């Protein structure tokens, strides 16, 4: 039994948690809902001993007081955590990652020289890793290095690491399905239920409310560090959304018949093939019309993200690509940018942002470099200075329009929360005034309010400027609302097309049918 009473965590004057209380019984899956910055991750980090500087309030775990000062202490009490940011060692194999610090050793050697110095038995480790992976329904070879795995597969390996622990009492999950496609997510939820049946307490944080409503026995909704509502025994996603967002929450939808594939082509792929790390897409024959929004759906690792990377010249490609009728040379991102194409990458921490730069610099630098916007034009393009006032005015305008929560345009971007960082990345794309926008997982890891805002923004970029958008996403629900048509990627091929105008349920069914047919 986990009991939390009146938990307060201060950062300076700011209270990340302002007196939150909750209680989790053995075998219960407890959901934590809330917008970005509502204190969910802080709560989990306190429980995992990953927060320094102490907290107020009291926690008991299985009847004994619990105040871990380090993850090591937390693990000793049987607490495990799966993080939002993936934390695998790239240089180690899958099996090594799963069994790290808990490697099997020769029993005799263990007794003689102790755990730390005894010889390891990699064979046992591999078997354990395979067992954990099989429980997740995964067929990853435990001997491959973690570096080459796709994001979804990496998430599963991380989960397998926790599953491998035998003394697990409390499992904390921070957005475990954010990087997973819906099919993968279902598989994970199944595993969590199994855990709960075995008596493990599960605390589950997610932005996917339908998932939470379906999975959790009880849900606590946080708002600004306080408990806004508690649900026990069943709640609907709408209930949760209402409580989390407070008020003024609505779901946007694309106006149908706005654009069609018969419009003049913006992008033409012919026998196109892209080989992105972790996923491949081959045999693409596709026309994207001007002003059209094309969705790419698919399970993780099946190639939906490869198209954008290949088209932008960020990974090896074969075949032909035309942008507004002109052939594009492969492997030249700057050429694509100069011709009006732009990418919103799915991995915003390593690729989408300059973490040590300010919000305004993140927004304007690529536009200044590629299009000469914001530059003073003296004495040559490369040696021009920025027009600071114009940059700041632009940044302030977008901060307001996008609702970016920050101290100002000069705040460092790595101090912002995930959703706000994504908005900064979108502002960067907007500064480039793209004619073609590739958006990869644009709403990953952001809360429902920010998600609606981001989707609305994509639509407004499209409607105001006639920008063609190619949007790859794991969430069928958002694709069905925003895209003119959606292509389903399966095993590295585009397996079929879903038209717009379907209800969300029909859309999901249609997708499942396409995948089944392709697999057969």
């Amino acid at each position, binding site marked *: 039994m986990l009991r939390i009473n009146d938990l307060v965590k201060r950062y300076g004057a700011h209270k990340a948690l302002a007196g939150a209380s909750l209680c989790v019984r053995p075998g219960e899956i407890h959901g934590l809902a809330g917008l970005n910055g509502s204190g969910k991750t802080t709560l989990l980090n306190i429980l995992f001993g990953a927060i*320094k500087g102490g907290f107020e309030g009291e926690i008991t775990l299985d009847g004994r007081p619990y105040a871990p000062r380090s993850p090591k202490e937390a693990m000793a009490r049987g607490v495990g955590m799966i993080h939002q940011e993936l934390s695998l060692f790239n240089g180690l194999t899958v099996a090594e990652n799963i069994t790290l610090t808990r490697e099997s050793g020769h029993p005799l050697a263990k007794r003689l020289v102790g755990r730390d110095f005894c010889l390891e038995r990699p064979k046992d480790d591999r078997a354990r890793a395979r067992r954990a992976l099989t429980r997740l329904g995964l067929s990853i070879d435990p001997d491959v290095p973690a570096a080459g795995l796709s994001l979804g597969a990496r998430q599963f390996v991380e989960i397998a690491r926790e599953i491998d622990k035998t003394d697990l009492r409390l499992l904390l999950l921070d957005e475990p399905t954010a990087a997973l496609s819906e099919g993968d997510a279902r598989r994970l939820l199944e595993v969590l239920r199994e855990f709960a049946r075995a008596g493990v307490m599960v605390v589950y944080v997610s932005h996917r409310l339908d998932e939470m409503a379906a999975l959790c026995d009880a849900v606590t909704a946080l708002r600004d560090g306080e408990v806004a509502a508690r649900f026990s025994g069943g709640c609907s996603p709408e209930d949760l959304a209402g409580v989390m967002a407070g008020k003024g929450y609505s779901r946007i939808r694309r106006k149908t018949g706005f654009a069609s594939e018969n419009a003049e082509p913006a992008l033409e792929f012919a026998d196109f093939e892209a080989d992105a790390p972790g996923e491949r897409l081959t045999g693409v024959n596709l026309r994207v019309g001007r002003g059209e929004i094309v969705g790419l759906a698919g399970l993780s690792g099946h190639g939906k993200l490869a198209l954008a990377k290949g088209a*932008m010249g*960020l990974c090896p490609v074969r075949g032909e690509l035309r942008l507004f009728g002109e052939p594009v040379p492969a492997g030249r*991102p*700057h050429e*694509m*940018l*100069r011709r009006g194409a732009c*990418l919103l*990458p799915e991995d915003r921490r*390593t*690729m*989408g*942002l*300059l*973490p*040590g*730069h*300010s919000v*305004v*610099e993140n927004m304007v*630098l*690529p536009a*200044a*470099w*590629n299009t000469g916007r914001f*530059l003073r034009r003296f004495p040559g*393009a*490369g*040696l*021009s*200075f*920025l027009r*600071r006032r114009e*940059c*700041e005015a632009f940044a302030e305008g977008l901060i307001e329009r996008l609702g970016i929560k920050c101290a100002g345009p*000069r*705040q*460092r*971007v790595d101090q912002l929360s995930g959703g706000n960082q994504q908005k900064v990345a979108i502002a960067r794309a907007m500064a480039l005034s793209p004619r073609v926008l590739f958006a990869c997982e644009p709403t990953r890891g952001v809360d429902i309010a920010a998600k609606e805002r981001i989707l609305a923004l994509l639509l407004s970029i499209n409607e105001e400027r006639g920008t063609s958008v190619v949007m790859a996403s794991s969430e069928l629900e958002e694709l069905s609302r925003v895209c003119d048509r959606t292509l389903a990627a399966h095993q590295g091929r585009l397996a079929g097309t879903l038209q717009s105008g379907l209800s969300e349920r029909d859309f999901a069914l249609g997708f499942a049918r396409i995948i089944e047919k392709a697999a057969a």
Partner: protein
Amino acid sequence: MRFDARGLRLDAHIPQLFIIAFLVLLAGAALRLDSPVGLMLGDSLVRLGMNGVLALSLVPMLNVGAGLNFGLPVAISAGLLGMCLAVNCRLRGLPGFFAAIFFACVAGVVLGWLYGRILNRVKGREEIAAAFVGFSFISIMNFFWATAPFSNPAMLWPIGGKGMRPAIGLRGYFAGVLNSLGSFTLFGVTVPTGLLVFFGLLCLGVYLFFRTSLGRAMIATGESEPFARMAGIRVERMRLLGVILSTVIGAVGICVYAQSYGFIELYDAPLMMAFPAASAVLAGGCLGGRALVRHVVLGTYLFQTTYVLSGPVANGLMVPEAAEIIRMLVSNGIILYALIYEGTRRRKHAA
């Protein structure tokens, strides 16, 4: 109005405050010992100017993400070549000095391009690779100096008349042309105006360069290559440019150094010259991430001044031989202290 994310924060400069406090202590001791403080202050200004350009030359490579330029000997060789050409043509005074700089820049671009190509192949291990490039390049240049067809007898071995001397006197050519340009004496301190103005102009140039769109693209490359590539910046080209820039500034730097020192030193002399320059930048507060001109100026001055002051004070207070030991202890200890301080601070920050 600050535009960039990083402002001047006092708490980020505590090691520098400590070094300054130590300097004040040293200066006080020097006064008590009746050392010629005016002379030493003038000396510290000269040392700032003559070493500052070499330290400044590390900035472009640091900013583009190629690490500390331990291959500074490559740049220095380019500068030495430039000066030898100027002396060989018997060019004297300021025109001779600027001719040397011109030749040095040309050599710097060529050598920098080759050096940059090498560094682009060893991405991630630039610093150690650069050190070895520097060391092996010295040997190549030794061979060159021993056989180069220069003809001015002032540069050649007096006996035999073939091969370069290890040290070529610049008196009569351009020794001290910058130091004496517009120099004046105030309260017993001789200010090397020309030298400081020249250094100041170079600093201003580097500062302004990194505000241009090209400079900002280089900084972006240094911070995140995936971002830079996605933003249409050609990463390899930026890195090459950064290395060339560093090499050219380093080549100019050794010309400034040599005119102040009065000699061109060939053969193994450049072997260890990268280390004081790197130490100065570190002592100035550049530890990981972006290097600023502020770090260079502050670091060089602090580093060189402790060097100047600690010798006489140690001589006065202890046995004469102590001077050199104390100097090494102080100057290297400062670096270690700055590194440890920054390391601790960053660990606290991360937690």
